[in-house]
C-alpha cells in the first residue's frame, strides 16, 4: 500500500516531465543552429562553435532597427490595450450600465471576423483616411482595437472575482470613485492586467500582417517583417542568419515572460470563467 501511492506520484511526475520534454523538442534546433557556421535543418552540435552569425545580424542595420520598431509598437500597443481594457473591464464589472453582459460576447465574435485577413482592407482604408499610414501609431491603434475585445473579456471576469468591499470601504472612508479606482482597485487588479500585458505583447510582437499592411518605410518595419529580409527573392532562407535572428527576436518575449512570472506570477488568478 505504501508503494501504490508512491508509484502514482512517480508516474505523474514522469508523465509531466515527458510532456514537458516533448514540448521542448521542436525548439532544440534553435539552440544549436545559430552557433553553427553552416546550419542545416538537422540538429547538429555546433562545430566549430561560432558567433559569426550574430555578428552578421548585429551588423545588419535594418534588422536591428526592426527590433527597435517592434519594441516601440509592442510597448505602445500594450500600454494602450492595458489601459483601455482595464478601464473598460472595470466599467463592465462595476457599473450598472444596461446590457453590459452581452457586449463582451458580441465584441468577441466581431473580433473573430476582424482578426482574419478579410478585414485588412477596411483597416487599411481607415488608417489611410486618418492619414496615419506608415506610422507606429497606426500599428499601435489597430492592434489595440483588435486585441481589446478578448482583453476585456478576460479582465472583466477577473475583476468580477474581486470583492467589491475593497472599493466600498475606500468610498466610505471618503474616496471618490476615481480615487477608489486608482488607489485600491487598480493595484488589486494588477495580476489580471499582467496577464493581459503579456498576452498582448506576445501577440503584437509576433504579428506580421498588420504592420505589413500599414507600414511602408523600412525604418518603421518591425522584426516580424524584417525577418523576411533573410529570405531571398525566391524565398531562399539563409538558415544560419535566420536562426540567429530568430533567437534574438525571441528573447524579449521570453524575458518578459520570465520577468513577469518571477515578479508577479503569471497565471489567471481564478479569473476567466463564463
Amino acid at each position: 500500500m505504501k508503494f501504490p501511492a508512491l508509484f502514482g506520484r512517480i508516474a505523474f511526475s514522469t508523465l509531466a516531465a515527458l510532456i514537458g520534454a516533448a514540448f521542448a523538442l521542436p525548439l532544440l534546433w534553435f539552440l544549436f543552429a545559430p552557433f553553427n557556421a553552416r546550419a542545416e535543418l538537422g540538429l547538429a552540435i555546433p562545430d566549430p562553435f561560432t558567433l559569426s552569425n550574430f555578428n552578421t545580424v548585429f551588423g545588419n542595420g535594418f534588422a536591428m532597427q526592426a527590433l527597435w520598431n517592434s519594441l516601440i509598437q509592442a510597448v505602445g500597443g500594450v500600454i494602450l490595450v492595458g489601459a483601455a481594457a482595464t478601464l473598460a473591464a472595470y466599467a463592465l464589472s462595476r457599473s450598472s450600465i444596461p446590457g453590459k453582459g452581452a457586449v463582451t460576447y458580441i465584441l468577441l465574435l466581431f473580433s473573430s471576423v476582424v482578426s482574419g485577413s478579410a478585414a485588412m482592407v477596411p483597416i487599411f482604408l481607415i488608417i489611410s483616411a486618418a492619414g496615419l499610414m506608415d506610422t507606429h501609431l497606426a500599428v499601435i491603434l489597430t492592434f489595440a482595437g483588435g486585441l481589446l475585445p478578448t482583453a476585456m473579456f478576460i479582465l472583466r471576469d477577473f475583476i468580477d472575482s474581486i470583492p467589491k468591499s475593497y472599493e466600498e470601504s475606500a468610498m466610505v472612508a471618503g474616496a471618490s470613485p476615481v480615487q477608489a479606482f486608482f488607489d485600491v482597485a487598480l493595484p488589486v487588479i494588477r495580476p489580471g492586467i499582467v496577464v493581459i500585458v503579456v498576452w498582448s505583447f506576445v501577440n503584437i510582437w509576433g504579428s506580421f500582417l498588420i504592420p505589413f499592411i500599414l507600414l511602408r518605410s523600412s525604418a518603421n518595419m518591425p522584426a516580424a517583417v524584417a525577418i523576411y529580409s533573410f529570405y531571398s527573392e525566391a524565398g531562399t532562407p539563409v538558415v544560419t542568419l535566420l536562426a540567429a535572428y530568430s533567437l534574438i527576436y525571441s528573447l524579449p518575449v521570453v524575458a518578459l515572460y520570465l520577468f513577469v512570472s518571477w515578479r508577479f506570477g503569471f497565471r489567471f488568478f481564478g479569473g476567466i470563467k463564463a
Partner: protein
Amino acid sequence: MTTEPITTEAKKVRNFSLLSNRAGAAFLTPAGLLVSVFVIVPFFWVIFVSFTNRTLLGRTALNPEFVGLANYLALFDPATFFQRGQFGFSLILTTQFVLASALIGQALLGLLLAWLIQTVPPWIKRLTETFVIAAWILPEVVIGFAWFAFLDRDAGTLNMMLNAIGLPSGDFLLDQPFWVIVVFNTWRGAAFSMMLFNSAFSSIPPSYFQAADVAGATSWQKFRDIAVPLIRGHIVTNLILITMWTFNTFTPFLLTNGGPSYRTELVSIYNYRVAFQDFQFGKGAAVGVIMMLINLAFALVYLSIGRKKKAPGT
C-alpha cells in the same frame, strides 16, 4: 406595504453603484472608440463588401458592383463544394482541425497538464510549464521555422530520434500534413488551456479532494467526479476562446502553405488565398462572414451546454 410608491416623485433618484453610469461610460470610451473604429466598422465593411464583387486589381477594383448573394452562392455551389481547394472542402477540414486540435488536443492536453502539475514536484512543474508556455509565446515566424526544421525528412530532429530508436524516417509534411498541423496547433496552443485550467483547479478548495481521498476515491475518480464538473464554467470559456482562435488561426500556413494540394487549406488560409492571392475581396469577405457565423454557433452551443448541465435542481 400599502402606501403608493409614487411618493418618491420624479426627482433625479440615482441608485448608488460603485461606478456611476456616467463614470462607467467615460471608462468605456477609450476602448469603445478603438473597438468601434477597428472592429465594428471593419465588421460592417466586411458584411457590405461580401455582397459586392470588389477585387484588389482589375476592373472591379475601384468600381465594384453589388452582386447580392452571388459570393455566398458561389461558395456554396453544390457542384464544386466538396472539391479540393473549394470552400466546402476547407470548411470540413477546418471543422476536423478544430475538433482534433482545439477540443481534443489543446483542451484535453491542457486539462491533463493542469491536472498533472497540481501534484508533481515544483521543479518539474516549473520546467514543464516553461516549455509549454514557450511554445505559446514565441513569435509565429520563429516557431514556424523551428517546426520546419523539426520535421525535416532528411535531418529533422524528429526523424533523428525515430532513427535512433530504430524506426524509419517519416516524411510527415508530405504524407501526414493534416496531422502535422493538428499536432502543431495543439503544441502551440495547449499553454492557454493549461494555464486557465490550472487556475481553475487551484480555485477548488483542497478539502474537496481530500474528502474524496478519505472517502476512498482514486485519482481518476477525483478528476472525473470533482475536478471536471467544478470547472465547467472555465471549460466553456476555454472552449469558446480556443475554438475561435483555432478556427481563425493562420499559423499552419507557415508550415505547409495550405498544401500539399490543399490538404491543409484551412478556412483562414482559403480566405487569405481568395482575398490576397486571388485578390477577390468580395468573396473573401463572404468567407469571413460565414466564419463568424460558425464561431457564433459554436459559442452558443458551448454556452447552452454550460447552462444546461447546471440546471438540475435550480
